[in-house]
């Protein structure tokens, strides 16, 4: 039986003072490794795999950036929720 896959697109504003630096990027990658869905970040017309730390760093996401998060998979809801939560709490910064 095939599990139902969903695609969830969210838009957020990055509040971290120093943007998505090493630590938030590391946090995102660690967080996402537990989930099966594919996750993408889109920033300034570029879309990258959010499970790749290099890809995130190369987006050079600054503070106040408008970021689109796309989650696609059978655990899309939970993944999105956890991810948005991490952004909301500024990754504990």
């Amino acid at each position: 039986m095939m599990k139902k896959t969903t695609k969830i697109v969210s838009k957020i504003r990055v509040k971290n003072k120093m943007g998505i630096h090493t630590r938030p990027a590391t946090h995102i990658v660690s967080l996402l490794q537990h989930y099966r869905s594919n996750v993408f970040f889109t920033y300034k017309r570029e879309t990258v795999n959010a499970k790749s730390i290099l890809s995130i760093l190369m987006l050079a996401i600054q503070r106040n950036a408008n970021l689109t998060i796309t989650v696609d998979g059978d655990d899309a809801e939970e993944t999105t929720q956890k991810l948005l939560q991490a952004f909301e709490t500024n990754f504990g910064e």
Partner: protein
Amino acid sequence: MPTEFSVVGSILSRGVVIGTPYFLDRAIREIPNIDLQSVHAVEEEVHRYKKAIRESHRYLVQLKNRAQKEGGEEIIALLESHLQIIEDPLLNYEIEQEIRLLSKNAEFVLNKTVAGFEKKFHAMNDAFFQQRIVDIQDISERILDCLQEKKNTSFDMLPKDSIIFAHVITPSDAADARRKNVVGFVTERGSNLSHTAIVAKARGIPYISGIDFSKLSRILNAERVIVDALLGKIICNPSQKTQYEYRQLQEQIQQRYKLLQKPLDLPCQTIEGDPIALYISIDGLDDLTDLKTCGAAGIGLFRTEYLVLQGGRFPTEEEQFEIYKQLVCEMKTPVVIRCFDLGLDKVPVGLDPLSGYNGIRFLLEERTLFFSQLRAMLRASSFGNLQILLPMISSLQELVASKKLLQEAKEQLIFEGHIIPDSPRLGCMVELPSAAMMSSALAKECDFFSIGTNDLMQYSLAIDRLNQSSHTGASIHPGFLRLLQMIIEEGRKAGIPVYICGEMASDPQLIALLIGLGAKGFSVPLRIFPLIKDIIRLTSTKKGECLANELLRILPEEAGLQLLDAYCKECIPESVRYEYTAS
């Protein structure tokens, strides 16, 4: 007998060392370009690449385990981030696919991919993001070494007292260096912000960069080289006499260091017995044991922005609380902690250095950040004598706004159930002429002043402090001295302590002058603490006052410098004077 010669460079980590040069040849690497002829060959190549990744990963884990045993938070954090990078799909799955797509060898594909990353990172106008490419290049070098089966130039194989000469030294090279074998670094390129410099400093390895290697072809057969990372030069083929002098200097440095180990019971006072409070300025929690035993009155300045610069991000309230708490608990003396002071040469991300958006203005703008720092400080204050210092205050409003925020933080914490004793002391950095002129008003609203002599000098005399070669003349400028005198006097009138911080406080030639202007407290780096204490004990308050009165008069700079020189020759013994010209 080859002649002795020196080459000047930039100091990235202080110290002096004599050793044998060892040239690390990372710059020249042949990247083969091979077309693979069959599907089988391509799959073999993918397999070979995966193996190289596994080996490199294993090596990094080994380094990390070793670092965890030997201690060194910066090194561990660095290696952890390297491990994340080496596990990145862009360096794994993507490269494997690219090998298949192009039917080329792994070295070629890896090199091409990393070159692509370099382009992207180079285009970023953000120093921190930019620095990440060094880490990626480092990892790429390691993978290439595995692919080419280059025996890891493990530093364990090097003879004792080796000084590494390289075009560039990667952070993991630095982490690999063992104290016994590798005693110095010399490179063509390198930056103070780099991880390598941070690791070198943490390890106490003298490091000079900016050396023009084309001048060094003559020393390929050199027996000895001296790295003088106090004056900023390397000496090739040093004569016996030079080697002897440097060994003497090393001895003296060792002696000084040993002195720090013994608690210094002698009181810190002038010849007349006037007590002078001598504190230590710090950037982090290294050397905590030495700080406790050196006999200082306490920590006069903890520059918390270094937590940001080293970690690459702002620490959380919890992280800050742990650090501040540890400091006050261990020290048991007053600890003055300055709120994040960011701007100008300590610019982190995205802040325009000339926008005036620095010091207290930055903090008041970034309320949440400021608030969480204040909360962490308040929480830690119940464990010891913690005092809060506000950076770059230029107006009464800024001080009042900060006090209001502090009060709010206190109330919030009490509401949450924390016990906050009486509010910790709150002081202002007086480092702007505007603040100096208003010091009478500021003194009424705060508990102490810290004079930031570097910035005060820069802003009042319009000189660029990063390029100050000889600024003794600037330090004794009558206009500047009058500003200092004003601040000290207003502090005295209001009954609040005034501490002198910055390079002037560390300058043995200027201590008497500062005491003569009324200074009763200084904050200096640990390494210079014993020297300054010696100088204070050799200073007569009266003579200092005479010197100050002379220099306060409008004299031409030449005359002022001569006066100062005459005073030093008369009142500071030869042996002590040698010490400070060398450091």
